[in-house]
């Protein structure tokens, strides 16, 4: 057949029509849709047997119980552990996203040794054996030079066996420089030392309080034990307890409070004393408690026989509601009514330590608020503050010391804590940059960093980095490539909290004495090691008395031995609640309204609970007319753990927009500056400047700017790095003259259009 144009046309039309009559196009259509339902790049999770592992969350110090759902050997979901005394099955957003940290892209997968410039991100993989060898050699050499105190360690807690192992290593090495990350607990410790004469820590029996007077404490913004606080809040709602929140910005806590008192920042102590004034004047205080346990309420004589004004007299003279109103910007009527409400409540409690409690509070304020509690007997009573003894289950034999160690341990701590000037302080990490930068050669030659990310979390990032650059050897144990790990010389990656055994002792703020056991939920994913094991290995490599101080085969053996008969219960149950002592023996100690320990004439910086000393901020008022204050939110982790992707996702677009932090500013202030919602501005402080966006909010006092904590990371992955501004980069710390802790509550600032 000749193929001409006509037959070709007929053929093509015929075949097109023909094909459509066959099942082929329909089959293809079906296949294509099935393909879209099984795209190979959309994962299909493998099914398998489900199981649960009970453990403890390690992402903050609250120590919530968790149970992790597993499918075969994969962890697929973290839930709260029902019945756990801290969280009873509930869990916060950070805890929920722990698996993103476990399986995420910020893990350090093997020991690393720096090869390029510090912080340049050039690393060499190194074996555990070799890294322990190298570090132990360096430490031995350093020790031989006769200055063992040049070894320091930074750790978020001094509780639990790993911290104890680290501390023990420092001790036998000969260094007192175990530095703990400061928090509001540091302030509470000092206050109880001074006023209660107790070394215990403070527990908050808030579930039983009926009136909560919070001086800026972000009870619902992550304060001390976030889940427990939110649970307590629901209890308060049920039993109609009253919450009064005193702070310049409407935080979530303030929004949920029965009353929000917007106070001029930095004047909390004055308000506390004003409230005390009303209570004393109206004779509404707990006479029984004050007379029985109080000292220095009335006129008192010191050792030398000199007579001093009592707390009562000082407060009555100096802190009339009218005076306080002027200082704090709060109505006289409001001061009086709050005072009366507080005093008339059966179980009131006053709290301080702003935001999530990650920062200490100035001693002045702390003592004034503590005195308020004493006035109502809210110390060691139901619903008040409880002095809880420090956990005491870690009972290791005294370690043998050689001469170098004995000498080294006697030297003054590098941060001055416990020394002449800051006698009550246990640790003053905040002073470290100042001390290092002031000396030509760093007083710390080697720094071990465990469960801490000081380069991110410490104030004045520039100074911190400068100080760290002067430390010749920095070793990080971080499981994640955080800022400090990135800036270290060696990274000896720990297992994440979901891959390791670890005990967690009485969480800060807890009234109950509690031991929980974290255990591996999954097998370690990478070539990482429990830091406890690394310390034991290091000690053994150092040999001599140091090795002897660590008689355990490994960390697990140490843990089992330490916990003794508790191990079995813990392994089965996950946690143990210690039997409550009848009443803490500290109750019989006097409550010192005079704070004699720090209120002596011999001290220039003398501070009394009944004094309000306004702290002036860094910077010139005319150049920096505004005040920048930080705030915390449950949706951002500002501590040593970076915020995981899920949690970042929950952050409002009024907090983070694209890569800009947003600052809260009152519409009045914004109008004066000619700013509208979403404007990009340059925020300048005496320390630094940053580009941010403006968020107009009626929930902040005019003249202030508020910046969220927890953003501005340079480390971690694209889900966190480069997002927003780190508040710590914008201010310099102010050292509290008595406690030595940082007492900054803000910094002067200005904003100008970008």
């Amino acid at each position, binding site marked *: 057949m000749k193929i001409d144009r006509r037959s070709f046309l007929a053929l093509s039309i015929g075949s097109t029509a023909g094909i459509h009559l066959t099942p082929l196009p329909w089959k293809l259509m079906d296949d294509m849709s099935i393909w879209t339902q099984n795209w190979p790049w959309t994962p299909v999770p493998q099914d398998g047997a489900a199981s649960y592992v009970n453990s403890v969350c390690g992402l903050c110090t609250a120590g919530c119980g968790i149970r992790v759902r597993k499918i075969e050997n994969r962890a697929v979901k973290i839930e709260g552990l029902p019945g756990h005394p801290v969280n009873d099955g509930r869990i916060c957003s950070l805890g929920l996203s722990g698996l993103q940290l476990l399986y995420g892209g910020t893990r350090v997968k093997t020991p690393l040794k720096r090869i390029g410039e510090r912080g340049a991100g050039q690393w060499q993989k190194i074996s555990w054996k070799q890294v322990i060898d190298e570090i132990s050699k360096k430490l031995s050499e350093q020790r031989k030079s006769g200055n063992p105190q040049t070894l320091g360690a930074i750790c978020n807690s001094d509780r639990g066996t790993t911290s104890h192992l680290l501390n023990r290593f420092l001790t036998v090495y000969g260094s007192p420089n175990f530095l703990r990350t400061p928090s509001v607990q540091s302030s509470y410790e000092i206050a109880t030392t001074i006023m209660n004469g107790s070394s215990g820590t403070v527990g908050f029996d808030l579930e039983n309080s009926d009136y909560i007077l919070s001086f800026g404490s972000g009870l619902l913004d992550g304060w001390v034990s976030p889940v427990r606080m939110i649970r307590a809040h629901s209890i308060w709602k049920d039993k109609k307890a009253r919450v009064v929140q005193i702070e310049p910005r409407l935080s979530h806590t303030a929004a949920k409070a029965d009353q929000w008192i917007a106070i001029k920042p930095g004047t909390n102590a004055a308000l506390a004393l004003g409230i005390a004034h009303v209570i004393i004047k109206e004779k509404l205080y707990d006479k029984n408690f004050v007379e029985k346990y109080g000292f220095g309420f009335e006129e008192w004589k010191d050792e030398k026989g000199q007579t001093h004004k009592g707390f009562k007299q000082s407060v009555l003279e100096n802190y009339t509601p009218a005076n306080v109103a002027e200082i704090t910007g709060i109505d006289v009527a409001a001061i009086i009514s709050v005072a009366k409400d507080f005093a008339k409540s059966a179980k009131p409690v006053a709290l301080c330590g702003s935001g999530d409690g990650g920062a200490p509070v100035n001693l002045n304020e702390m003592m004034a608020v503590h005195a308020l509690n004493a006035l109502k007997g809210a110390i060691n009573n139901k619903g008040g503050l409880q002095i809880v003894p420090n956990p005491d289950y870690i009972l290791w034999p005294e370690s043998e010391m050689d001469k170098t160690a004995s000498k080294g341990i006697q030297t003054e701590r590098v941060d001055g804590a416990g020394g002449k000037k800051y006698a009550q302080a246990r640790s003053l990490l905040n002073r470290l940059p100042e001390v290092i930068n002031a000396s030509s050669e760093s007083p710390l030659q080697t720094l071990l960093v465990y469960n801490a990310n000081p380069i991110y979390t410490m104030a004045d990032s520039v100074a911190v980095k400068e100080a760290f650059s002067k430390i010749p050897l920095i070793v990080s144990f971080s499981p994640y490539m955080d800022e400090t790990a990135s800036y270290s010389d060696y990274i000896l990656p720990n297992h994440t909290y979901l891959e390791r055994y670890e005990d967690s002792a009485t969480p800060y703020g807890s009234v109950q004495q509690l031991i929980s056991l974290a255990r591996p939920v999954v097998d370690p994913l990478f070539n990482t090691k429990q830091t406890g094991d690394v310390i034991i290995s290091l000690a053994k490599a150092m040999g001599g008395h140091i090795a002897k101080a660590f008689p355990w085969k490994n960390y697990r053996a140490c843990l089992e031995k330490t916990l003794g008969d508790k191990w079995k219960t813990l392994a089965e149950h996950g946690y143990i609640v210690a039997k409550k002592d009848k009443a803490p023996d500290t109750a019989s100690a006097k409550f010192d309204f005079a704070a004699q320990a720090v209120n002596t004439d011999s001290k220039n910086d003398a501070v009394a609970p009944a004094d309000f000393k306004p702290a002036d901020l860094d910077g010139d008022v005319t150049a920096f007319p505004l005040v920048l204050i930080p705030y915390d939110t449950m949706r951002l982790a500002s501590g040593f753990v970076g915020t995981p992707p*899920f949690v970042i996702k929950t952050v409002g*677009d009024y907090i983070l927009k694209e890569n800009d932090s947003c600052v809260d500013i009152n519409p009045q202030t914004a109008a004066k500056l000619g700013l509208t919602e979403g404007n990009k501005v340059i925020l300048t402080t005496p320390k630094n400047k940053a580009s941010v966006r403006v968020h107009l909010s009626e929930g902040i006092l005019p003249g202030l700017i508020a910046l969220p904590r927890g953003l501005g990371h340079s480390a971690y992955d694209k889900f966190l790095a480069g997002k927003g501004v780190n508040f710590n980069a914008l201010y310099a710390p102010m050292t509290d003259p008595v406690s030595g802790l940082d007492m900054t509550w803000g910094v002067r600032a200005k904003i100008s259009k970008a």
Partner: protein
Amino acid sequence: MKNNHNNGKAKKFGMVIDLDKCTGCGSCMVACMSENNVPFKADETDKRLSITWMLVYKLNNGKSHPDYDECYLPRPCMQCEGDHGHSPCVSVCPAVATDYSHETGIVSQIYTRCFGCRYCMAACPYHARYFNWWDPAWPADMEKYLSPNVSPRMRGIVEKCGFCFHRYQLAMDKAYYEGRDELEEGEYQTSCTQACPAGAIVFGDLNNPKHAVHKIALPDSKHGGRPKNPNAFRLLERLGTNPKVYYLSSRKWVRDSGDNYRPDEK
């Protein structure tokens, strides 16, 4: 869309969220994401491109300091029944990719059926429906944490909260295995309910007078499920969506924020 006749055991799962207790912490959002294999991307600050089946809104009373006040309002899918038996979204889906179950009262979403026309999103006044504008991706080893009980969604389709329906299925399987055909109240709870630190979310069968949700909200079945509890309200009740999520608030302005009122009604 089949109007299966209730066999006497029909459930109507619903939620009561106590806004007095809700602190806006965001746990429910993350509990939902981690339970339901919700994807995430590097920039989630454009909230109109961010998949959050459960979303906590921040409400305010529109006043100036010192009368200014805020409230947080978690918004899952409302699982609307519709006053006339039509959910806003179910009736519009051209391919029956979303359906109203008369057995549970839950609005389902069939990911492999949806072809991404987004009509349901246009229909939903709560913005509870989300589109997969991107291919989902779980970087590093994060695919390992994906739950096999919820299939990850491919690009180009709509997804939403389904009251953790897979948990209902798992609980029912267990019950059948144990020879029961009814669940205890606690056996089926959503992930957000379980996680909420404030215990602000209560979940259960609104048809069951023994369940807490029923006892708290007191739904009036004669009036389209309207709550008899004076502090309870539902979002946009006036539109006739008949949602199954109830809110509690002791603050009038918060209750008034739940619906639209003309100036002359205020």
